[in-house]
């Protein structure tokens, strides 16, 4: 159905995580995607993990959280998690 297509559509999101629940990032910082990949696996049930979410960046200085490719359903699930503060759809900004 159209609704199913919508909820399974993969987009990029920025996920703000409560610092108390944020994994410790190694020195590679932004590029260290593994800690938040594990974070995702703990919060998205296995049956919802297709297509597999993919962490793009791990933020430790400008924000606490990560950017990831998620389905709308996965994003909604994350947003309802107590350790997640906000899930913001990625968007294109323009040069001025």
């Amino acid at each position, binding site marked *: 159905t159209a609704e199913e297509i919508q909820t399974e559509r*993969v*987009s*990029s999101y*920025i996920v*703000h995580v*409560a*610092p*108390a629940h944020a994994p410790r990032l190694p020195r590679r*910082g*932004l590029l260290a995607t593994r800690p938040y990949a594990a974070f995702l696996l703990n919060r998205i049930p296995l049956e919802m993990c297709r297509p597999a979410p993919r962490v*793009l*960046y791990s*933020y*430790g*200085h*400008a*924000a*606490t959280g990560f*950017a990831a*490719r998620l389905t709308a359903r996965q994003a909604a699930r994350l947003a309802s998690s107590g350790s997640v*503060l*906000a899930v*913001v759809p*990625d*968007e*294109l*900004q*323009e*040069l*001025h």
Partner: protein
Amino acid sequence: TTLTPSFLRLSESSGLLPASGGASDVVIGVIDTGVYPEGRKSFAADRSLPPPPRRFRGGCVSTPEFNASAYCNGKLVGAKFFRKGHDAVLRGRREVGETESMSPLDTEGHGTHVASTAAGSAVLDASLYGYGEGRAVGAAPSARIAVYKACWKGCASSDVLAAFDQAIADGVDVISASLGTMKARKFYKDTTAVGAFHAVSKGIVVAVSAGNSGPGESTVVNVAPWFLTVAASTINRQFPADVVLGNGETFIGTSLYAGKPLGATKLPLVYGGDAGSNICEAGKLNPTMVAGKIVLCDPGVNGRTEKGFAVKLAGGAGAVLGSDEAQGEQARTSAHVIPVSAVTFSAAEKIKKYLRTQASPVATMVFHGTVVGRSPPSPRMASFSSRGPSRLVPEILKPDVTAPGVDILAAWAGVTSPSLLDGDSRRVPYNIMSGTSISCPQVSGIAALLRQARPEWSPAAIKSALMTTAYNVDSAGAVIGDMSTGKASTPFARGAGHVDPNRAADPGLVYDAGTEDYIAFLCALGYSAEQMAVFSPATNCSTRAGTGAVGDLNYPAFSAVFGPEKRAVTQRRVVRNVGGNARATYRAKITSPAGVHVTVKPQKLQFSATQGTQEYAITFAPRMFGNVTEKHTFGSIEWSDGEHSVTSPIAVTW
């Protein structure tokens, strides 16, 4: 940047520039389309430059297309790129462009222009085909540049946030971001505002562009109070190109056309709308009607240089480009590939009238090159510069300041033409551009100078100094004009006024603010615990003491909003004496907005060695009698000790 340093009164012999050593100990992080350093002397390290600051931990990444060891030096100290978000957002909708480079290399031109505007090294004999010729130098000539490429065809928010994250980790001192969303977002959903909040909390100044969506009301973006939001205005330089009609009427347009000039013999003039396309779209102009003629084109839809190119493809000899009515007295300058002059809306209307009333209309164009002078007065607010009030938080007056952002020459990438047209094979080391993108890095550079000259100042103190010392009159002594109306501009266009770097070095008083103040401000906005946690995890607004009204943020400008009940609004401020004399007395001088009675308590602030800060309250009360028909009225408050003038704009929304 061949004229802006003198327009900004930046001198190598006195004032802020020598006092700051050109900001040699400051690193400016530029979040943009990357940098094109090859053959661009703006990114060469002067031998006299000391080693970069040791606290800077960044560096340059090397790729097959970006040779870090060749390009990076004591001037260009950082170059990194972020693209994962761009690809994720556009997956399936766009192929990676042939000319794009998976590296910090700038294949657009914008980032190179911005970076060299902020902190380019001095280069002699810079020009665009002779236009704007002179010694090009960035606002902070000795500051270091660290480039964070987050913009490709658009800038994905996740890439921009990654750039902020990396810039903070690397230890930059100033961040310059000439980008934004189309509309202002709530701060917890605005990733640039979130990234900037954390940067400012770490002492980094973040300068951003106000946007190019003017002159409409409430078009300003990047409105968070921790941003230094920059509008755009003109300098004392034009590139005039006259359109001379067969009846002798002459209209002064603008152009950067650099080819063979048209002769004195007038050519047939035709309206694009009568030849297949009023907006002069490629392939839609009838060559038999256009060949050898000058074509008048309407604005909009396609780019300005595309219109000229379309006329060229159809065999036309030249084009006259009209402007939008909203742009008023402004026509936009571009590096056209054929003889083209851009004229104002009213001029285009008169040319159309001439076309309609003549059996054989003819015209020619005369290109005057670069003209520097006092007429028209400068600065004037660019029509395109986005305007306040802030739709999101009308109590915070935005934009903050204005700076040169019209027809500015700076370095350009070697893989793109000055017209940005694929069909234009010209390659140039410098280009002339306009936008708040261009004014933003000027202010980033000035902030870098202040950062070094006044190392103890916070980002908010630097912003305050720039705002309270800004000037509001043009070279003719009138209030800075607005090109969209031809009348005086308002603080919703120019903010606190035009930056005056030398005066900013000695503002007398500053309105300081830190992380705690911004948290109180966010609490006053009514943010939930989760929304607050994006900024500050431990904050519980409901149990927090001292959270006042939104307008109580210690901001160097005032914006009062009268509700339907028209109650008086009181706002509180704290000022710190940063003048040379610890014992100082400042007195208030008010210019009340129309229909408003403004009172200040106390009216005199006395500072001493033990009392370096003072508080005051300012009340805006609607007058009981009198009729205000405007939606907004404006005034100012000036504190002066006889030596310093600490001025803040006042905006009232009825």
